[in-house]
């Protein structure tokens, strides 16, 4: 038996692997982000913050995780 390879995903243009059965809330926590300060787009669709705990990460998902920075 091989080890669980997990799911291959893209986060902000970087390849990452996450374990089977990881929710978006878990993925954000694993990166070390405060979910209250970010917004998440998954395969070009907004993921409402209220559903972070329910939405599971799927193989091949492409995520954009953004926040506010200084700007004019």
């Amino acid at each position, binding site marked *: 038996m091989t080890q669980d390879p997990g799911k291959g995903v893209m*986060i*902000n*243009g*970087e390849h*990452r692997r996450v374990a089977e059965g990881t929710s978006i809330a878990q993925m954000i926590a694993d*990166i*070390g*982000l405060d979910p209250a*300060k*970010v*917004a*998440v*787009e998954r395969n*070009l669709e*907004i*993921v*409402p*913050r209220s559903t972070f705990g329910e939405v599971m990460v799927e193989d091949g998902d492409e995520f*954009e*995780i*953004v*926040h*506010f*920075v*200084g*700007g*004019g």
Partner: protein
Amino acid sequence: MTDSWTVAGHTFRSRLIVGTGKYKDFEQNAAALEASGAEIVTVAVRRVNVSDPSKPVLQDYIDPKKVTYLPNTAGCFTADEAIRTLRLAREAGGWDLVKLEVLGEAKTLYPDMRETLKATEVLAKEGFKPMVYCVDDPIAAKQLEESGAVAVMPLGAPIGSGLGIQNRVTIRLIVEGAKVPVLVDAGVGAASDAAVAMELGCDGVLMNTAIAEAKDPVRMARAMKLAVEAGRDSYLAGRMAKRRYADPSSPLAGLI
């Protein structure tokens, strides 16, 4: 005497909106904001740094509960990019009030009005309240208003140029024709430029570089606050008529 303005149902006392880019650090940015008296700050939406998420962030220094964050679409060159950015911004912050800017080219950062109008329509249909950066064109401003812009924000001069209000005639025409607030966005360099914008009857002024790139940003922020207030009072007071020649202020009668 209280003076306030209202955009999309939100009322503000300060008529100065300041950006949060180009500052030396967050401390200086927060100090300049304090000195400016602004109640709204513009912010950009960018990818988080997934490699180093522990870095300090803007919210640690400027509290979005105390100051209204106005998310922008800086760096977007198409309607689709701008709409995508603002959908994320709404989710990140929970606000419908946003600043739309769709740029036409990097050299001038002039707005692409075709894409801007397209984005304004879509955003308004989705429940956003877009305050829209635009050319200083009275017809374009009207079209934006018809498309759902809650404020029109013509440029005074190119973004970051500090050249001052280049076309007072068109800014005044926009003010006269608009039913929504008009704010000069971009081009202010010195406090006198902000006063000019307000004397033309604008509801407010938005600036970033003029404060952030001043030698003393905190002092310039204060100057801008005073200039906006002075310009507003000057507009409301109603200026004297212009004459072609002199008119003495002291009486001619009783001269020795």
